[in-house]
């Protein structure tokens, strides 16, 4: 059924190291341009937390031929949609433009890769903006601070432990010189993947990419952070008082292998069996049958390196978190003892097929998927093979992975308890 869909892309590497992926789809006059840099918060040094994300903001502050905020303004004027995001493992910049504006999108990306203009005024302005972003996205939201705290508690390795948004005290101390050095070290063609997906002609698109990016010399080094995480010897647990939360909540995490590993696919399938849809195991037990919780989600946290299998649940008032934790652990423990049924596995496969096909209906999503596979698996071709990897997962694989991962000692738990005004 899904074999009739195949993404025919081509892959190229310029002499300055830039990896280029082209995918042609001329059905609608739109082209998605996505530039992924292999740098995220895990690349930061202690004392400079938040720099990767703050730097993402600085990329819109102007370059040699583009003044402050002009980048977005020109893309808007072209009818494009654009944004950027920073994760622990990578930073991406993307725009979907009417295809006759491809030159503009490439020129803008190349100009800021080559010649970012970092001024004290812009740096200060964006530092304030990020501090407000942290307030809006975390400090002023129920459970926001607990989410930030969770990785910090679970990971012993600071690289993944500290939050992408950074620590405000670190943000306040960051200097212009550090930002300039960051650009030179990480923002060059040798550390980037450029994807063009949509209404292009491949030879012409490649010629344009060469025209704009080939003159940029690569100054990046090949630094990759040490993401290794020592085995966890005993359970970690923390209570978190939250003055904004109205209901208690629980976050559980279990250390598991990296994205793309065999266990990753097995546990990703398991997360569907546990929490996808109203017939899933945890939905049925925790919400439908007993009304202990109002929501429950689970799955690998999608990090390139050592991951956590996380379970998040907002609880009904009056339920002791320890009891909810025990119920969740009992369900997770059952997976390691008895395999999931054939019907559950088939249901998960149906859902994955559906999700894959849905994702292929927009060139922007195909472009982002190609870039993600290039960065996370060093293999953009995974867009055509990953479904098979999911399909190859057996009940025995799930049982074995669950047995390895869901042990009490491997667990991190954060309980969020409402305190004060929100109730």
């Amino acid at each position, binding site marked *: *059924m899904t074999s*009739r*869909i195949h993404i025919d892309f081509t892959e190229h590497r310029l002499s300055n190291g830039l990896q280029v992926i082209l995918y042609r789809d001329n059905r*609608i*006059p*739109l082209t998605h341009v996505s530039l992924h840099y292999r740098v995220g918060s895990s690349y930061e040094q202690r004392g400079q937390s938040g720099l990767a994300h703050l730097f993402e903001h600085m990329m819109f502050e102007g370059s*040699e*031929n*583009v003044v*402050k905020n002009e980048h*977005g*303004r*020109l893309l*808007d*004027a072209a*009818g494009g*949609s654009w944004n950027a995001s920073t994760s622990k493992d990578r930073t991406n910049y993307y725009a979907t*433009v*009417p295809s*006759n*504006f491809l*030159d*503009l999108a490439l*020129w803008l990306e190349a100009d800021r890769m*080559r010649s970012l203009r970092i001024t004290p005024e812009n740096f200060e*302005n964006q530092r304030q*903006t*990020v501090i*407000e972003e942290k*307030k*809006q*996205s975390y400090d*002023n939201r*129920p459970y926001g601070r607990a989410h930030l705290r969770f990785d910090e508690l679970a990971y012993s390795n600071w690289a993944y432990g500290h939050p992408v948004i950074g620590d405000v005290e670190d943000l306040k101390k960051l200097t212009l010189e550090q930002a300039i050095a960051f650009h030179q070290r990480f923002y060059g063609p040798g550390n980037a993947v450029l994807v063009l997906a949509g209404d292009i002609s491949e030879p012409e698109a490649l010629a344009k990419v060469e*025209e*704009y990016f080939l003159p*940029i010399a690569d100054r990046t080094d090949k630094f990759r952070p040490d993401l290794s995480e020592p085995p966890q010897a005993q359970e970690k647990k923390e209570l978190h008082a939250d003055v*904004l*939360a*109205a209901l208690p909540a629980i976050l559980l995490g279990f250390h598991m292998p990296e994205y793309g590993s065999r266990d990753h696919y097995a546990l990703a399938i398991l997360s569907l069996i546990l929490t*996808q*849809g*109203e*017939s899933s195991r945890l939905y*049925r037990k925790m919400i*439908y049958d007993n009304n202990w919780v*109002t929501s429950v989600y689970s799955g690998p946290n999608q990090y390139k390196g050592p991951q956590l299998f996380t379970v998040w649940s907002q609880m*009904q*008032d009056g339920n002791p978190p320890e009891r909810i934790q025990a119920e969740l652990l009992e369900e997770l423990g059952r997976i390691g003892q008895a395999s999931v049924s054939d*019907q559950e596995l*088939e*249901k998960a496969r*149906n859902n994955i*097929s*559906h999700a894959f*096909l849905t994702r292929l*209906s*927009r060139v922007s999503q195909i472009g982002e998927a190609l870039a993600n596979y290039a960065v996370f698996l060093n293999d953009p071709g995974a867009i055509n093979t990953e479904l098979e990897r999911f399909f190859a997962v057996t009940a025995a694989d799930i049982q074995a992975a669950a047995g390895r991962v869901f042990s009490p000692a491997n667990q991190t738990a954060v309980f969020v308890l409402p305190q*004060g*005004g929100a109730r």
Partner: protein
Amino acid sequence: MKSARPVAAGIRTVNYPDIPEEILPNGLLVQTIEDHRFPIVSVQVAFPVGRVHNPDDNLSLLQLAVESVKEGTESRDARTIADQMDYWSIHYSGELFMESTLHAIRVLEQHLERGLEILSDLLLNPLFPEDELEKTRERWSSLLQAQRSQSDFLANERAYLSCFEGHPYSKSTIPLEHLQQATRGRLLESYREKYAPDGALVLLAGDVTHEDSVRLARRFFGNWKSSSTARMEYSAASSRPKQILLVERPNSVQSRVLIVARALPVADPGMIDLRVANQILGGSASARLFLKLREEKGFTYGAYSRLKTYREDGLLMAGAGVRSDVTGQAIDEILLEFDRMVDGLPSDEELSRSQSEIIGAFIRQMETPSSIGALEIRRRLGGLPVDYYRNLPSAVQQVTPEMVRGISRRVFRGSEPVVIVVGDRQAVENQLKHLGEIELFDSQGKRLSAPQT
């Protein structure tokens, strides 16, 4: 590399497709958007029934009805419905809007008939079993409480209650006691009275032909009886005086600021002009509000404005999450930007960029059959002309600077703004006093003080 910016001539736009349709004898309109590239079909069943049609004494009934159609039918209990939907990957969603209801599924083409059979069972034969209703009531009680911890929710609630006081458009949130008072009998009565095929439409989009759409619609929805109940009519809400509303949210580390102007009904001839004006004011990160409040002042992570349009009325809502200590200044800046829209003409660059933003968004919506379907449903239920989307790009391009100023005068001078702040009372109250008398509310929606008259 080139230092000169590449230029391109205009946006290549796309044509809105011809959408074939047929009306079944029971009044149900069947439409199809064919696209055979991917083996997926979305089915959207839309009704001209929304929150406004809730009875005044219980604002939870239609929301409960939408939620509970999948909790049991004459031939399936809730567990069976969930089992079958999940197994066949039938992605169902049901949503109640201000003036419409949408039940939708998305399925692999090979499971289309199975999906339609289940969807029709949910819509034609819901039982709303008492035990399931009780579960939903319990679940929702907590969720209704939890949403009161969100500053965005509190600001929006206050906007609708204040701008549309006494009008059906004020029915934005569900009081807890209404949920507790909702009975199975009233739910069944409301559902049967309000939801019927006449006036409704089913739109199939994706890997399906129109011939098959009509055949399947006849088979699964053809026996649905039309209704004889007349639908409630209402007119535009009356205008309100200027209001300064402070919702006290203890422990806030930021203020949520929302300034609301009464806008236009969806089919108003000035609506295209207003969309362009809103885009210039706050429709993107290149717009005036963002540049002023974030890039120039550093008050916020983002500041935007958006339009909410309904059959008889509309709102323009401008807002931002701002530092508590600059709450008053942020409001002053937003109001100044309202004045600038009224007093001056937009630059050619602003106008043309904003026009391109709207046209670009339209092209992106034309990329998938289900998103085209969503536009078509909005057009139908909003009473917009058949060629509305076909003409949209050219209509947007014809808006002039004078038209932007004219529509801004109509909107920003046509009524008084409502200023809403959700935040820490102690930190912000003094900053609002220059605006006028302040009405104070708690996060439960209770009025703590009224302005002195």
